[in-house]
């Protein structure tokens, strides 16, 4: 890797100042060190260790909403029994991430902000669209792991399982931007990746994720993924759903898919369709049709359409409890 400076920030202000124009925040480091070792990103001139920032490793359990600090580890989410009861989908998503060793150090903020896993982007000798080249190799090449939906020529999908689940839970991501806190929906957090090939999220340089805020308005949530392997493998497709179920009928339902689009894939028309309907096979199948209606499968990833259809149905039916 290239040489860099290293500093530990003790306040969010100093973290922001240290990272300045060309620095990078270092928390779990799982994603960042991989990028550095393979020379996949320019710079950074300085790594700013944010693990000592006060308050960011807390879980606050409120009545209307919970906040989970950006430095809370994935393992803590997986092991927190109350999260398992209040946000079961989040617990299920956390338990599927990587391996126990990685979950022990991976943070919520890092999981949300992680870079593309596209194997062309990650190949050190391929200069693809995402790296400033003029060609998305995946479009013509082996796109088995790529998006069914995209608003630009890059088809690298978002792979954050927490992001997908938080989208279904209607959570907000609180970011420190230019000294002020800014609340972003999950859709907003990734919006830029929908339109800009070089982006994998909407964060500006220097933006620091502080926490996520999850409303408790939905009492049921669920997460499912399918991978090639049974553990320690990226999702081919993931699905999260959240809602209340009153007398067998859905209330405030939200569904999100991961690994099929540069953003968590949410279709408002499907959520609207589900509102007030009985949670049965017919309903969930029609919702899946709506969610996948505009899919544009490529040569090697069309299998994701039936797979996603099955996952949507199963995840929604899981909300029955």
């Amino acid at each position, binding site marked *: 890797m290239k040489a860099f400076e290293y500093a530990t920030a003790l306040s969010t202000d100093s973290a922001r100042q240290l990272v300045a124009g060309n620095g990078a925040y270092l928390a779990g480091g799982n994603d960042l060190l991989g990028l550095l070792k393979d020379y996949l990103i320019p710079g950074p001139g300085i790594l700013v260790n944010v693990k000592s920032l006060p308050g960011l490793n807390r879980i606050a359990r409120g009545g209307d909403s919970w906040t989970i600090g950006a430095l809370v580890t994935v393992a803590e989410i997986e092991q927190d029994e109350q999260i398992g009861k209040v946000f079961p989908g989040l617990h299920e998503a956390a338990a599927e991430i990587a391996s126990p060793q990685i979950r022990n150090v991976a943070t919520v903020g890092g999981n949300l902000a992680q870079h593309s896993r596209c*194997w*062309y982007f990650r190949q050190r000798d391929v200069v693809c669209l995402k790296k400033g080249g003029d060609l998305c190799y995946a479009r013509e090449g*082996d796109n088995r792991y790529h998006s069914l939906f995209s608003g630009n020529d890059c088809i690298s999908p978002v792979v954050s399982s927490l992001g997908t689940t938080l989208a279904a839970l209607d959570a907000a991501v609180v970011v420190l931007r230019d000294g002020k806190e800014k609340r972003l929906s999950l859709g907003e957090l990734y919006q830029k990746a929908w339109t800009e090939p070089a982006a994998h999220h909407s964060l500006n340089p220097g933006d620091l994720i502080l926490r996520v805020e999850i409303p408790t308005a939905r009492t049921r949530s669920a997460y499912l993924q399918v991978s*090639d392997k049974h553990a320690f493998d990226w999702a081919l497709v993931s699905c999260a759903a959240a809602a209340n179920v009153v007398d067998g009928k859905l209330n405030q339902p939200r569904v999100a898919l991961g690994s099929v689009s540069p953003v968590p894939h949410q279709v408002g028309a499907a959520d609207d369709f589900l509102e007030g309907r009985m949670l049965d096979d017919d309903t969930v199948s029609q919702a899946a049709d709506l969610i996948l209606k505009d899919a544009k499968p490529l040569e090697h990833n069309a*299998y994701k359409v039936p797979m996603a259809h099955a996952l949507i149905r199963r995840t929604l039916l899981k909300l029955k409890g």
Partner: protein
Amino acid sequence: MPSWPTETKYISHATLRVDAAPKVKGQARYASDIQADGWLYGMILRSKWPAARILSVNLDRARQIPGIKAAVVVRDGEFNVRFYGEEIAAVAGTSKQACLDALQAIEVNAEPRLQFAVNEDLARKDGAPQVWEGRPNVTPGRSRERGNVDQAFQECDAVVEGFYTTPVQIHNPMETHGNTVWWTDEGITAWASTQGISSVRDGLAGALQLDQSKVRVITEFMGGGFGAKFGAGAEGVLAARLSREAKAPVRLMLTRFDQALAVGNRPSSFQKIKMGAKADGTLHAFEGENYGTAGIGAGGDAGGGGGGADIPMPYLYPIPNTRVKQSAVAVHAGSARAFRAPSHPPASFGMESAMDDLAVKLGLDPLAFRLKNDPNEIRRREYAIGAEKFGWKEKYQKPGSAPGPVKTGIGCAGAAWPAGGPTRSTQGEAQINPDGSVEFRLGVQDIGTGTKTVIAVVAAEMLGLKPEQITVKVGDTNFPPGPGSGGSTTCASISPTVYDICTNALQRLQAQTGVADARGENWFAACKKLGVTPLVVHGNWIEGLSTNPACGVQFAEVAVDTETGLVTVKQVVAVHDCGLIIDSLTLESQINGGVIMGMGYALYEERVMDDLSGVVLNPNFETYKLPGIADVPEIEVVLLNMPERGVIGIGEPATVPIAAAIGNAVANAIGVRVGSLPITPARVLAALGKIPPVAQT
């Protein structure tokens, strides 16, 4: 004629690996743990082009990087590179970072070729870019025919045709390729991660034009090779040249990334099989056409030791009317090397898949169909034992008939391994000390299978001692020459050799000390009579204690989610023979490892080459997927002990049939064949006809 003892205390029993404790405690010094005095890091610059003419390489800027002590180009003058990852130059320096910086500072003046072919289908086309100038990518191919195939198909009551493919698989041993090499005025010492210390010594001596006596290769412990670690390799020769220039030991271990590019793989196969049988289930006609790629090496080696693309067809079954045609395709990708049972896993997958497809067409139970056509007596016994353990009769149901979206299915397949016999030149020695301690020294290496334990078990049995009383030293070319650890030959080579050493030792002890039988309780008294001088005795491999071949059968039960395509292996029963069992514990480990490796071949592993850029897309364990603990089911190992046959090796047959058994179980579960490995969720959904057509862009 010598014979193995019939009443045994250790042979055929379970002995814990003699080096288990140092391995578990991290005290075992693997090749990658060696830190010779003043050692430097070594690193290789690889081609970032799949094909290029290298005009010149300038090392000046690299040499100026602080900490860099040596830099070399692989060869003088202009040269071609023919695959992404081919070696161009190497550097040695005092830190990893210095080497990384130096690699970036090397200036390579190259003419990249814009046309290349990294996949078989493109390379086979007319006018495809040629890998070797003046030589077509596709070998002329070899055909053989027995009987009258065309007429025989007319006489069949059922005929199936299928296309079965297997991917390029990468060895990926736990420890990467590499070594520390120290070149001094006295010669070369290489601490190598190798499965052939002698072949590395000879390779280094040949490449560097040194007397073989000036090269010593040491391999105390190494972390697996699977056929890819016989030679000195570019990493050995370059480390030696760097060491000479730097006048210091150079430690050059490859990275996982390097491992995917340039140090071997199992060739792919594309098998078109047509096969017919009579109504009673007798196989009658076979036609097989196969091609595969061995990378830039396109050899037609029919298997055994090489990395050729040919496979044995029609594998286990003698079919009176047989036509086989095979060719190999050169592509711009790293060359194949021997890989655990070369050519057998793909042969097994193609043929055993066709067997099940034909059984279904005939309306026969696939196991009964095999028993009808497989003449091998041992395998037939193994099928009977395995079917009982596995519950074949109770579990078998018509293909695709299991209820619900998650369907279970079962399958089985057989293995053959023609080698497994001895390397007859194997030698060894023992030093017996007056205090009764004894050290065995053999110029073999322990590839991880338990070679040291085998030596200790046989020696303990023969001398009436305990295995822990035997000190075993291997992995040094200063010891009497031993075999390479390949072809499942090691156990059958060293066991008779140790037997001979022990027999000689007891005779010499009797002659020197007058103790008629120095074994067991007499051992220490006899040794004491040696006085002050240890006794050193030599031994050779001797006839009558080992043989070949081995075979085996494996059964698998799977659950297939027909909505997501995910395959879960629920149970495996593996029944194997290897003549006289030496140590049942290390033997079971071999079979467990073989099954797990074969599961990777069945379900997860595949080197993916990109047509457009020519690179390997998955040079890591993130996307080159290997089975993990969550993927591996209960594996029941059943061993046939056949002392009357003598010792036979087992490493290879254990990995042969599982992919075919899993493939057959998947077909039995879902009622359609997934003809290509690995059997991914995407392929299962495709076979089930669930994937929508894709609009052409």
